[in-house]
């Protein structure tokens, strides 16, 4: 194999380019971290969508005890609340409830927080 073992015809110059590129590579490395840590910023605002049997719906703020938690805590609390008599009483006859969770996430590689919206745990129609 013939020896053409430099890019710039000078090993010191090659080493400078190598070091510069390696520095850039290492500096950008933290951007490559994916899904290693929770991304939620702030807490969750929970709204309650009450859907009538004919599809009409109104959105109201959910009880204060469900507000201001992390998303997972909010879901856990919603599940517990929906099982209480107070929660079951909120389901309109023949209709359903939808829990809307509003929160913000921050991706490690993006400078912009993004708003997320999750509709979850739609309660079954009351018997």
């Amino acid at each position, binding site marked *: 194999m*013939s020896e053409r073992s430099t890019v710039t015809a000078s090993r010191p110059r090659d080493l400078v380019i190598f070091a510069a590129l390696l520095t850039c590579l290492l500096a950008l490395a933290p951007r*490559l971290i994916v899904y*290693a*840590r929770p991304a939620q910023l702030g807490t969750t605002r929970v709204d309650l969508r009450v859907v009538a049997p004919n599809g009409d719906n109104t959105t109201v703020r959910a009880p204060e005890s469900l507000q201001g938690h*992390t998303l997972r805590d909010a879901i856990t609390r919603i599940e517990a609340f929906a099982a209480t008599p107070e929660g079951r009483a909120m389901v309109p006859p023949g209709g359903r409830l939808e829990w809307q969770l509003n929160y913000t996430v921050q991706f490690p590689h993006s400078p912009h927080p993004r708003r997320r919206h999750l509709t979850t745990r739609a309660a079954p129609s009351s018997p």
Partner: protein
Amino acid sequence: MTSRRPSFDDFLFAPVNAQAAAWFRIAFAAAIPFLFESDALGVPIWAPPPAAWVYEHVLLQRGYTIFIALVCAVLASGWRARAVASLLFVLLLPLAGLEIGQLSRQVMLTALLCFSFIRSGTVRFPWRRTSGGESSAGPAWPIRLIQLQLTVLYGVNALAKSTPQYLSGEALMDLSAELSNFRVDLSDGVMELAVLAIPLSVAAPASALAEYFLAAAFWVPRLKWVAALAGLAFHALIARVLTIFMLDYATIFLYLAFLLPLFRPRRAAGDA
């Protein structure tokens, strides 16, 4: 017969096999149109009006994607390969700013920039036996940078996961609830794979360990094929749990820097 330890100088300046470099060049040319296809993506929200106009009317148009593919075809042919690779880097750089796929684009752009220092056009048609398989495509250091990028990619993710919160599975439980990228709900602390129900307190440390292994094993010649197979399995598993756009493919593409015979085994002194 005496053998010599590879030195730091060998590590950076050993000649790159031109035929393998030509295969790598063709792989770049084939992968880039796929990994950079952008005409269905939206204008980035950070872009001020003039830049947004350029994104909307030029960079995110089907015609630009086709133009990139044509430049890739020229790269594959080996004609002025270094200049074409550099041009391709410039053409693709604005696409690194798109909101979706930033990580895979960063990985591929860094690899392409490094590869543009390789004289991969020394051999234009690597499948021809007489096309100069013993000639050099330049020094090893650009390829070493691509290899180091793969190590850094797995390494930073393994390090980021080495926290009590991640290793206990708590972080994955939160993330699966927060992010729509997750295909499965892990909030109950269990990951279901076929008939297996794996506690996240086991799955999370296993994923960190896998990334430590992948960061290191490619550097061990005897383990590099094992690492490649383990890496494929690892990414197939990840794809079942969450979507990370093109990062899986870009990462697997970097395996070629280890798997192609870019460096001939050193001959021991005295071997004729």
